[in-house]
């Protein structure tokens, strides 16, 4: 199996997958259920999600393990199954991916804030390590530490990944436009500051996901590129910002609208594009067409 870096050299721009959470809810996940528990109890449904992105033509797909840290599994009584839940997540995506598609083991934030003493760095490290061990043993080709806000937490997750595997480690942060008109994480960190830390920690790919539609991401990628012109950049944008329709909050950007902006996102410096909240296999298929057209 190749690496992301090799695939990038070969293809130039890569396309990743779209949303998982919203998809799994559509399949009937209740809001009080743990999404990752389905890796063990409803693997066929999770396989469907993974396969739908493989069929859409993605170069890489994620795993259903965003909330797979022991800290997130604990309230559901699944802390003791951290390894199994994550191993199953990677196995399912691996099975759907076949030979040509890469599997990125998804690692999301724990919700615990280090600086407030809610958790120690050692506890955090061990928790991430257990999750990542499961993902690697289940067949993930790389680890994607994603949706991070806290530099210390992201750093700890990357170090945990590197303590376990030589496979590539990717890391994305979530930036929001502040009332002062700047892009920052909720902890106050700028895109450029995350770049500096991530390069220092040896991340192979960095970038941004969630929190923004494609338009916001274009500006964020420009700032990342000002800080570093070389390192591969991954972007998973939301399908716009949520709006209310028929009493439900929905992400409004259609596959057409989103793919129309992909050229500009690549021009800004993105190497891997995909989707976050509200994106579907159709969004991914259209993105792939837009990427091909661009070449």
């Amino acid at each position, binding site marked *: 199996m190749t690496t992301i870096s090799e695939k990038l050299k070969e293809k130039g721009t890569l396309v990743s997958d779209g949303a998982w959470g919203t998809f799994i809810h559509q399949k009937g996940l209740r809001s009080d259920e743990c999404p990752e528990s389905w890796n063990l109890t409803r693997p066929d449904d999770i396989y469907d999600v993974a396969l739908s992105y493989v069929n859409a033509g993605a170069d890489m797909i994620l795993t259903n393990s965003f909330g797979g840290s022991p800290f997130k599994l604990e309230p559901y009584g699944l802390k003791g199954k951290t390894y199994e839940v994550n191993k199953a997540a990677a196995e399912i995506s691996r099975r759907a991916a076949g030979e040509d598609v890469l599997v990125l083991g998804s690692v999301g934030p724990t919700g615990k804030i280090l600086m407030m003493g809610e958790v120690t760095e050692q506890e955090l490290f061990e928790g991430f390590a257990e999750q990542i061990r499961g993902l690697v043993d289940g067949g993930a080709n790389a680890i994607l530490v994603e949706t991070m806000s806290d530099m210390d937490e992201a750093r700890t997750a990357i170090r945990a990944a590197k303590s376990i595997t030589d496979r590539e480690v990717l890391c994305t942060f979530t930036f929001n436009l502040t009332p002062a008109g700047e892009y920052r994480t909720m902890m*106050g960190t700028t895109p450029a500051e995350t770049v500096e830390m991530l390069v220092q920690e040896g991340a192979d790919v960095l970038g941004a996901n969630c929190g923004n539609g494609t338009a916001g991401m274009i500006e964020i990628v420009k700032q990342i590129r000002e800080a570093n012109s070389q390192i591969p950049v991954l972007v998973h944008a939301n399908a716009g910002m949520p*709006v209310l329709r028929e009493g439900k909050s929905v992400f409004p950007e259609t596959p057409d609208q989103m793919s129309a902006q992909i050229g500009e996102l690549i021009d800004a410096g993105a190497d891997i594009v995909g989707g976050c909240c509200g994106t579907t296999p159709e969004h991914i298929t259209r993105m792939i067409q837009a990427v091909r057209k661009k070449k």
Partner: protein
Amino acid sequence: MQKNELLAHLSVCVEKGKADKATPTPPEMKDQEGAREITAQLIEMDVAPEEILNGALIPGMKRIGDLYGEGKAFVPHLLLAARAMNEAIVLLKPYFESGAVERKGTFIIGTVQGDLHDIGKNLVKAIIEGSGWEVVDLGTDVSAEGFIKAIEEHPKAHVGLSALITTTMVHMEQIVQSIREKYPDKKILIGGAPVTQEYCDKIGADFFSLRPQEAAEYLNSLISSTHPT
């Protein structure tokens, strides 16, 4: 230091999150006394607890809350400020309990059913507590029954609902309805990343904001409009 100087200093400690002498941040206040030591000193000097609350804690939290609302301070700053304020509140607690100091009222807050995210809720809690209210924190994953039980225990309290995910936000509607059935006039505030004014209007909640300080201002406005002077 004189009383007024100490009060001003305490207010800076709250704003900057200097909880006690051992707190390492902010660097420019390293090894200086923090909120706990200064509050203890003020109590020792027989300064009225009400003056400590109104003259130092509330203005300190308001300043950091305003900066947060303007995008000039961030989650860590608010959490550190809340921790510093809490050091002072703990020392003032006996005076609250004895009735020597009256707070503005009670505010019940919780993250709605199905949602385990608590950072946003904790920020709002800190700002509202720091604005002089007693806050009853129900935690996360709170059902309509959970909110109603808390209202039964604190009948005059206002209520705040928090949600981070679009799929749990829908529970806000059910919870607002359940509360309204029993307590039609109860003031209900909602907030969280996916929440909008439009959604607030639709589900019949009373107030929405993405800025915690505005929630505090709304609650404060309820007192001035309901308390005849």
